[in-house]
């Protein structure tokens, strides 16, 4: 190796991780700027928004690149591999990764705007909160774009640890600390389970690269199927924790209730996107031939999540806990699409995209009504909201109906999509369970609407929400309705998002 060769930087596919770089560097810069210049919080917020927007722009560039790649001819194969699988094939640049970034960045932007009052309350710690938010987004985006189990795990940890801290960022409140500790302990267990699954998968297949695993298994030369199957199961369980699927959901309601109101929506949505992105990637890329093995497991988790989430949500008197359990049910609905295997990727992504937007919006309303820096949100606080704050009540209604999956909202199209895929894949019983669970779910969504529209108002006045909150809530409801009426474009976009 000559000296000149040593000095030539290797050509790496920076574009493949450009959004992550933007977010990571942005987070660092925000912290440093904050300690050095003590800027106004509004400026910090705008800077964060600009960082997210820049990352989104890069994601669009990536989308364009992916489109070009998909038309690559045979003699461009080397080029294709270099661009699509940079960093020794630890990262992949495909539509799945790009769609994950779209969803993640949209949720980050919405969550930032909807929870802005929290960052104002945080005072000197606002920059830390913003940086943590960006870092967790970075981690979860890596989960969507890694083809290597080690990278998936790193993304998982970067994202999760930032979320643990965010859950406890209003540290003077005991509930917030409690939520953070709970989230941390149970989340660590989940990570441990996941990494154990990774280890067993490695033991069973001899690789941690998802594509290689698939190749090894396709050649049918693996010798320890039992080890491998336990590995798959443990990885599914680990991700089940992250997306709060039953029976690994117990942290979700407590954390949603205790964490500061302004950040819960983002926390819930981000963990779901990251977890499902990785789950799709792992199951569909590495183990497509094992679908008959993991399919029933995932279907079982899905059915349990839907039934348990919907029924337990019925008896909640705290809206945040209610949304937590409804999140369990939604994890089940999304898993209903996962059982269909690669064919269902588009529907799963569509569901994930529209649901997380609704989730961030709904928690935004909750934060606007009961406080962005506090815990808990009793249903009583919502009585007669339609008279006290018509805008919040109307947007909340749209978002709740969207989550309930009523036609003309995006939630209906999403449910319809995953149900069709599951039925197509032969899981008729799961679809029946799912439609029944969605009827049960109507009860608790309607309860909130009843409280807002049909019961007498309580005296508490609701502080008028700020411009950013109103904008984000309006956007979330608008997306819910428009996508509900014109689902085509997003469906086709999500339909492209199958992993390479």
């Amino acid at each position, binding site marked *: 190796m000559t000296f000149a060769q040593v000095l030539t930087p290797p050509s790496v596919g920076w574009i493949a991780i450009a959004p992550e770089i933007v977010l990571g560097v942005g987070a660092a810069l925000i912290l440093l700027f904050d300690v050095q210049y003590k800027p106004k919080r509004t400026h910090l917020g705008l800077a964060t928004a600009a960082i997210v927007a820049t990352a989104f722009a890069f994601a669009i560039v990536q989308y364009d690149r992916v489109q070009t790649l998909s038309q690559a001819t045979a003699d461009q194969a080397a080029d294709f591999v270099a661009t699509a699988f940079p960093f020794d094939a630890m990262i992949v640049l495909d539509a799945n990764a790009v769609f994950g970034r779209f969803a993640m960045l949209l949720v980050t932007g919405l969550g930032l705007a909807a929870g802005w009052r929290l960052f104002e309350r945080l005072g000197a710690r606002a920059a830390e909160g913003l940086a943590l938010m960006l870092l967790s987004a970075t981690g979860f985006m890596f989960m969507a774009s890694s083809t290597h189990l080690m990278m998936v795990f790193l993304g998982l940890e970067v994202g999760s640890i930032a979320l643990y801290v965010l859950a406890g960022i209003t540290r003077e409140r005991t509930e917030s600390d409690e939520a953070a500790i709970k989230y941390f302990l149970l989340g660590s267990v989940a990570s441990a389970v996941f990494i154990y699954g990774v280890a067993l998968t490695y033991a069973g297949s001899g690789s941690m690269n998802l594509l290689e695993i698939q190749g090894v298994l396709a050649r049918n030369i693996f010798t320890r199927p039992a080890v491998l199957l336990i590995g798959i199961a443990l990885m599914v369980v680990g991700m089940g924790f992250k997306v709060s699927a039953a029976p690994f959901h117990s942290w979700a309601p407590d954390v949603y209730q205790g964490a500061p109101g302004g950040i819960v929506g983002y926390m819930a949505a981000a963990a779901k996107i990251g977890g499902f992105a990785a789950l799709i990637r792992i199951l569909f890329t590495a183990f497509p031939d094992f679908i008959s093995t993991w399919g029933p497991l995932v279907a079982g988790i899905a059915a349990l999540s839907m039934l348990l989430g919907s029924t337990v949500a019925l008896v909640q008197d705290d809206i945040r806990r209610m949304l937590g359990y409804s999140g369990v049910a939604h994890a089940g609905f999304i898993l209903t699409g996962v059982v269909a295997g690669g064919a269902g990727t588009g529907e799963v992504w569509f569901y994930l995209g529209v649901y997380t937007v609704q989730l961030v919006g709904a928690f935004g309303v909750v934060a606007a009504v009961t406080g962005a820096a506090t815990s808990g949100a009793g249903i009583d606080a919502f009585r007669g909201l339609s008279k006290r704050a018509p805008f919040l009540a109307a947007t909340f209604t749209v978002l709740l109906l969207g989550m309930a999956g009523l036609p003309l909202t995006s939630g209906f199209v999403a449910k319809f999509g995953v149900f069709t895929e599951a039925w197509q894949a032969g899981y008729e019983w799961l679809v029946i369970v799912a439609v029944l669970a969605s009827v049960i779910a109507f009860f608790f969504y309607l309860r909130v609407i009843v409280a807002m529209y*049909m019961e007498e108002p309580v005296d508490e006045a609701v502080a008028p929400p700020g411009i950013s909150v109103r904008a984000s809530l309006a956007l979330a409801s608008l997306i819910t309705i428009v996508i509900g009426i014109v689902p*085509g474009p997003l*469906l086709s976009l999500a339909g492209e998002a199958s992993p390479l």
Partner: protein
Amino acid sequence: MLTALILVPAVAAVVVMLLPSDRKELALPVGFALSFVPLAIAGYLFFEFETGVAGYQFTQKAVWYEPWGISWNLGVDGISLGLVALSVILIPIALAASTTITDRTKEFVVFTLLLEAGLIGSFLALDLFLFFVFFEAVLVPMYFIIGIWGSERRIYAAMKFFIFTAFGSAFLLASIVALSVFHNRQFGSPSFDLLELMSLDLTLDQSRWLFAGFGIAFAIKVPVFPLHTWLPDAHVQAPTAGSVLLAGVMLKLGTYGLLRFNLNLFPQAAVDAVPIIAGLAVIGIIYGAVVAIVQPDLKKLVAYSSVSHLGFIVLGTAALTSAGFQGAVIQNVNHGLTTGALFLLVGMIYERRHTKKIEDFGGLAKVMPIFAGLFLFTAFASIGLPGLNGFVGEFLVLIGSFPSIPVFATIAAFGVILAAIYLLWAYERVFTGIPDKPENQKLTDLNAREIGLMVPLVVLMLVLGLYPKILLDRTAASTEALLDRVEQATTYEVPEQGRLADVFAGEGDE
């Protein structure tokens, strides 16, 4: 044209929503005025509709999302035409009857107009996905109308209404999903187009399960005994306009769905299920009537009479004869007119006395002669007095079902007698005698607005009673085609006297 029929009410709702919030009094008049546009469009359709053509007319189709095979697919035939007309007639009346609503008037008008869009959409949709969207979408406005503007137990009633219907819809949704998947397996692409799905090759088991899935959804909506328990609650608690639209149009979604989807898509299962459906229908007829007799509450009485009358429609559907189908279709419209009128009348007296208890009234005919006259007229129409509309429908249903299901038809005929008992007995207790209660003596008779509300309904009752040809001509070809479809796809043979030609041959002019 059909698209406009759906979009105009939706746009009208948006217009009303955008009215300045400090001019609350504008909402109702503007909404009322705008609701005449769909009426005009539907009127044009009604008279342009070509009689004697079996297929769908004025069809419009636009792809919605190709890979799923869903499309904006509209069309109207004899079965849906009357229901569309009924919807656009009842909406302005319901709005005009709602001047007493002072709280959140704007929202009320918006929800009513959205309801209209949803109802018309359901009747026009030829794509099952689209149908389901509208079918579910009508729930929300009605839920709010009952829940916000209803009486004391409105929340309970609204919840019960919503959950019952949503429960049924869940089965409908699963069945629609299944159909599209079966289409995908057989033809390689999913489809929700009713006409394409009719060519599906289903095993008997499949079609029975799917028939049950569709059937439960529609049976709850109708409602067929024993799934009817939400109906009295919803009716009693709903505001007058809500009751009118609920009984007048929304329940027809169920009977329409049975005719349109269950028979077309799963003919063999339908033929096999005739005893069950007819049995439940007859139970509904008798049970509804008997319960109506003992009701102390006037509104509840009308609600239970709905259960009874809708039983006739279901019976006509189960008869699987031309006359039965014709009767079911006509009775759909008739019941909308008469029951709508009865609910309006009950609403008028409730506004004056703030009670619906029969025992609180007595001798009202002396103080409110016009009101009494209109009530008696409507009651006769509802009972089925020859010359009024109710007679045509129920008579057709009965003569339609005698050839195929004579036992059920015989029992059902008693329903007509029971109807006379509960309505006339109620009339006697409310209107005859001397007004001995002091509150009743000061009651004022109907004012011009209220009479104006009733006039179009009364006229239509007379017209349809004396000259039903105007509607029957338009429904005949479609019901014949439906019968052909059932006969060709199954082992079922239409009995003698079951065809339209046979019926009218022996009957002469009505």
